């Protein structure tokens, strides 16, 4: 095999997610009354990036063979916090943004500390911390309300250079400034290695704990970026329990669609981003085909089922049946 074939194989999950997204999006815009216009793209982008940020956050944890069920709640908590703090003069706003991001990172770090140093299972630990984060969000915003620096909000949810959605640019910037450096650092590799085979990583003397801790912390940080954007879109803070849970579950779906293995060690946040965008487009498709919105969950479920089934074919090649259970 040639170099490019190995690179292709490495990125197959990401490319598949990209392909699924492009196909759906083409069908969507082709059937949209307005067609492929800057407006349509901007609306779609603004809907998609929220889930994309949360899915990117989820990916960071999933590659360590963990799972973060508090991720939607960190997203809500930072939304509520932003609706208090990201206001006023540019300096005050900047301070607010920094605090919101720091709180997100702190939430992630707490998850990481509990899972890694407390040796609790990620599912249980993050269900508990998720409830705590939601509780704080509720105290911050018992009722929807608050406000946000509208200049900043409009700049980041509008268009740049006349046609490019600013939210997409922000998403790309986060990928380049957070995900790419992490995935290529020694700690990032340790996180992958721990997800793939923790014993082999230990025997090789890798910094497993710090790698995993960094992954959890960055997950909180990226979820907080999502929380900021939620505030920019809605101009309010809202501790909506159902919404937080939906984001958590959809982020897992997006991660799987994006070719990230829930067993850890494999996949890319870029794939998860496309997975998230594709997942959002499923809903939009129903809209352009004039289907009753009642059908949306069922339809989304079926598409997801088909997409994740593709990953199960490898099991047919297993020669020792005990490997099915590994």
């Amino acid at each position, binding site marked *: 095999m040639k170099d490019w074939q190995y690179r292709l194989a490495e990125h197959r999950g990401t490319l598949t997610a990209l392909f699924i997204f492009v196909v759906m999006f083409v069908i969507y815009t082709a059937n949209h009354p307005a067609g492929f216009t800057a407006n349509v793209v901007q609306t779609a982008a603004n809907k998609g990036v929220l889930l994309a940020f949360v899915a990117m956050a989820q990916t960071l944890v999933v590659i360590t063979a963990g799972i973060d069920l508090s991720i939607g709640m960190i997203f809500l908590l930072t939304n509520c916090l932003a609706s208090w703090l990201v206001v006023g003069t540019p300096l005050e706003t900047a301070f607010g943004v920094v605090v919101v991001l720091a709180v997100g990172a702190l939430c992630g770090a707490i998850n990481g500390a509990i899972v890694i140093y407390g040796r609790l299972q990620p599912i249980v630990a993050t269900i508990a911390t998720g409830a705590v984060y939601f509780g704080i969000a509720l105290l911050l915003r018992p009722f929807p309300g608050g406000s946000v620096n509208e200049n900043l909000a409009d700049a980041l949810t509008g268009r740049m250079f006349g046609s490019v959605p600013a939210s997409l640019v922000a998403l790309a910037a986060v990928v380049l400034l957070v995900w790419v450096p992490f995935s*290529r650092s*020694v700690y990032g590799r340790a996180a992958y290695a721990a997800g793939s085979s923790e014993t*082999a990583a230990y*025997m*090789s003397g890798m910094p497993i704990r710090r790698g995993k801790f960094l992954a959890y912390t960055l997950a909180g940080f990226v979820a907080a970026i999502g929380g900021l954007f939620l505030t920019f879109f809605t101009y309010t803070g809202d501790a909506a329990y159902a919404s937080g849970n939906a984001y958590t579950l959809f982020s897992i779906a997006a991660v799987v669609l994006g070719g990230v293995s829930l067993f850890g*060690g494999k996949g890319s946040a870029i794939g998860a981003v496309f997975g998230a965008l594709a997942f959002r487009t499923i809903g939009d498709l129903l809209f352009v085909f004039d289907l009753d919105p009642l059908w949306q969950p069922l339809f989304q479920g079926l598409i997801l089922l088909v997409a994740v089934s593709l990953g199960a074919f490898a099991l047919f090649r297993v020669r020792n049946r005990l490997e099915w259970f590994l």
Partner: protein
Amino acid sequence: MESAAPLFRMEGISKRYGGVRALEKADLSIRAGAIHAILGENGAGKSTLIKVMAGVVAPDEGQMTLDGRAVEFASPAAANDAGIVCVFQELSLIPELSVADNIIISNPPTRFGMIDRKAQRRLAEEALARAGAADIHPLALVKDLPLSRRQMVEIAKALARKPRILILDEATSALTAADVSKVFAVLKRLRSEGLALLYISHRMNEIAELADDCTVFRNGSKVASYPAGSKSDEEVIEMMIGREYHNVYPPKPDRRPHATPVLEVRDLSWADRLHDISFSLHAGEIVGLGGLDGQGQRDLLLALFGVLRGLRGTVLVDGKPVDIGSPAQAREQGIGMALIPEDRKTEGLMLPMTVRDNLSFAALDRLTRGGIIDSAREDDFIDRMMTLLAIKAGSLDAPVGALSGGNQQKVVIAKWLMRQPRIILLNDPTRGIDVGTKQEIYLLLRRLADEGAAILFYSTDYAELIGCCDRVLVLYDGAVKRELAGAEITEHALIASALNIGSGETVQQGAAL
């Protein structure tokens, strides 16, 4: 070998696991620019010895010196830093990462805090070339490589760490003949570069070709060190023999005339792990599987029990060919097979569940009426098993994980006896349990055989094979190399055939050959 000052020396190293001693005042000294072979049978302490050297386990007592200075290793990383690198038998590669990632894993080149992938690629290619494996693509994922290539990657990874002492633990066991000769060339070159190499292998011909010095271990202690070539194979075997032997085994009955075998296997092969295995197993017989650890014994048991896919060859039960596709089929009425697994904690028991539940799992279909468990019947069965095996449990409703190792193992056996199996496969059932329980298990096996069961018994303990078995099949490289029967089953014969060297006696070849 005493002429040059040793590079590395171990003195009086002891290590115990629970009550079992793995090393007892072990000594070893190795010199630079030489290949030192370690020999010993299963459980002689070889693995523990190198784990101590490589910083994986800490010794209970004793000291190690490197260049004349005392050293202690708290972790594998510490040993690496001192220049001791081990190629482990259980591979330490990370499956989802590429070959290059794995080779450079402990110390990757970085630029601006990120791994420099170009430099990494170059280093990986160098290391692969040094290991004689330049044909492996550095971007390939480790999980996609066959075992023999992975082992080459493992060696390249070790070389990339620039070791002063390189330990190879059965490093050639999965290699093809072509790879072995490449690895040998590499090892000889490393020796000429002044490295000290510690080589552990069960293959006497490899040791004869490579080694400069040899050390034989037995029962966790050094028996002798000698320059390679100064002892005959015969003498080496004599040194390896001598495990303590107690008469804890029930007497063997005279062999009965054979009717149709209960289980017959013809030319069974699987992947590249089992090769043309043929044998038969009769009612009332205990047949042992011998040989060094990892020569295909476990695969054979799993194959018979319907776990492996893609088997070639024929399996006959009561003279009729059968196609066993799963453990559920293997335990069916017409076949009546049971497998007592090796690792009771993962394959035998549901640790948090109760003793009662665990005992019933394999026999639930016999204990139910209309899909509901008949608890009177269940209690009745369980009572019988508890008495038969003398299982000591505080309560039937206690979690099985709370029992002692020996009693847990009894539960695993009892769980299958609930079905009254006709063919019982045992995978090293006495590993890690106390002597008293071992003895009870030997008695039980003989009693089951007397009642008409056919038993296939894999053990890594030669004494057990000698004491319990009517016949022993010795496996080597996934094939039956020799069949020993009755008085032929001696420690000498077992070790000689396990190492695949003719020992002067008439070698009765296995049916497969």
